[in-house]
């Protein structure tokens, strides 16, 4: 897979706040690349710089190996976190409006079918449900037949059913060979959709790899979580532990042995919770606070 996006040392400051702090990464063609992080991590600023909407203070952006130009930015598909459209237009009129902006727009009939908009074509876009609205916004992002599509928290606020429908839609877009760059603070969304994830916190990259590789790298066996009782556990060398959010979190290969050791050290097992690690646990481990905080 060739590199479609190469980001080097990207930085953005707002007064004293360093929103994005010299981050670098590459995105491969046809992949889904996820930017994860809590609110304020710098995800939106990062993608707005990649979309050409915000001028970086430092760093370089290369599309297909060449410095990003206005022509590159106009070939991107974008879906913002919060997008208002011109009032009093129907879904169809809105699609036609955006299609008119591009010299070679997508076939609207195909787009309408792909994004399942047929039944709501004549409806005022302000009267759409959350899921329908996101499907319309995705259609608008695809109206210029982009090869790279930016989706900024596309499923925030959607119910579980609508989210899963939207994921299926993204899978279809990916299946067409397009590159999707997605921000989210839902770990399940990233695990479901992303081939590569970049976890950000306070403007910095704290992890960058495939979800599986990151989990394998940071966790083995399972996670045990129990209420923090104030004392430090004494565990074998292959187990690790940390404190966060009032809990003691232990990553252990041998769960039975760990439980026996905890009992021997007079830990109460009330409230004990055992599970496999996920990206939220990874984030907790790396930063000390939860991804969805």
């Amino acid at each position, binding site marked *: 897979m060739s590199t479609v996006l190469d980001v080097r040392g990207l930085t953005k400051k707002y007064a004293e706040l360093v929103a994005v702090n010299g981050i670098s990464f590459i995105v491969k063609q046809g992949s889904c690349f996820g930017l994860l992080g809590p609110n304020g991590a710098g995800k939106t600023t990062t993608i707005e710089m990649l979309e050409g909407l915000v001028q970086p203070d430092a760093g370089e952006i290369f599309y297909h190996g060449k410095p990003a130009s206005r022509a590159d930015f106009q070939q991107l598909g*974008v879906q913002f976190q919060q*997008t208002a459209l011109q009032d*009093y237009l129907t879904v169809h009129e809105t699609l036609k409006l955006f299609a*008119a902006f591009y010299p070679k727009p997508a076939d609207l009939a195909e787009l309408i079918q792909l994004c399942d908009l047929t039944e709501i074509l004549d409806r005022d876009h302000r009267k759409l449900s959350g899921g329908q609205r996101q499907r319309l916004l995705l259609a608008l992002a695809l109206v210029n037949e982009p090869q790279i599509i930016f989706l900024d928290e596309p499923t925030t606020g959607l119910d579980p059913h609508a989210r899963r429908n939207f994921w299926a839609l993204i899978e279809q877009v990916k299946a067409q060979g397009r590159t999707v760059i997605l921000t989210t603070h839902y770990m399940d969304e990233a695990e479901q959709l992303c081939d590569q994830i970049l976890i950000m916190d306070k403007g910095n990259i704290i992890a960058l790899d495939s979800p599986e590789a990151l989990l394998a790298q940071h966790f083995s066996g399972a996670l045990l979580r129990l209420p923090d009782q104030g004392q430090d556990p004494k565990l074998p060398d292959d187990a690790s532990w940390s404190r966060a959010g009032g809990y003691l979190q232990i990553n252990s290969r041998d769960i039975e042995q760990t439980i026996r050791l905890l009992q021997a050290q007079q830990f109460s097992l009330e409230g004990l919770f055992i599970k496999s690690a996920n990206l939220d646990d990874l984030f907790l481990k790396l930063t000390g606070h939860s991804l969805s905080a």
Partner: protein
Amino acid sequence: MNLKRFLAVFKARNLEFWRDKSSLAWNFIFPVLLVAGFAVVFGNGNKAEFKVGVLQAAASIDATTHPFLQTRYLEFVPYIQTETALKKLQHHQLDLLVDLKAKQYWLNDSSAKGYLAEKLFLQLEPGAVKATVTGRQIRYVDWALPGILGMNMMFSCLFGVGYVLVRYRKNSVLKRLQATPLTALEFISAQVLSRLGIVLFIAGSIYLGCDLLFDFVMLGSYVDLLLVTILGAMAMISLGLLIASRSRSEELTGGLLNMASWPMMILSGVWFSLEGAPKALQWFADILPLTHLVAAARAIMTDGATLSQLTYPLAVMVGMIVVFLSVAAMLFRWQGDGR
């Protein structure tokens, strides 16, 4: 400038306006109510007094020079220029015009008050030579109409462009458009021309509709009036664009738009003439685009002025369009507040 993109935004903006029924209704109802209100309030308000113009060399009336000037319940207004006085008589702004030295008088044949004033005058000057003029009465509603329509256009131009632009910026409509090949020039041109079409249609419809009821005086050319209206609307739309060029605060923009519109409403000659007002006030009124629109439109409608007689207001409006649009284009930002 890509025509396809421009037309797409132009169409979308028009659809948005025409489908907003409440705002649309208000745009039509408010000026009609004002015009009707003025017609009712001032329509039958003819005072019992007669207004007589006196042609003389002095700037003030000396009642001792002629017994007619001592007649009670007559208001005497001195005129040095015959042409000016005759125009007033034509439009029923005078009931009678007399030249006491030359023993001559002028009368508007269609004025009932003029007929009575003539009887009074002939009691004292039985041999005076009579001359007549013709001309329709210019009522207050005829005088006020250009101002009322102009004021309605001003609100529509300033708020319909300025406020809408800031709303678009605040709720990220502009940000989404910025991510397309649409240029600022295409977007702004579409907003300007859409609003121009809207205000011309509304002002034209109101004029025609009210004309059926009130039969307004129109002494000039409709083509000239259209040109003046276009220039006036463009000047005010440009001012709206300038005010809304970069802010994303509706409160701030609302305040600035009010700051621009209130002086125009009061000082641009909508309700009363500023003739005789302090020079500083007249100078201030001169920097307001509505002043020039109302003055030019009123001159065409009630004085029959031609464009060659209106070079000053026309030149000022063109100048305002150029300056406001240029500065607005320099200051314009899609996202505002430094982003």
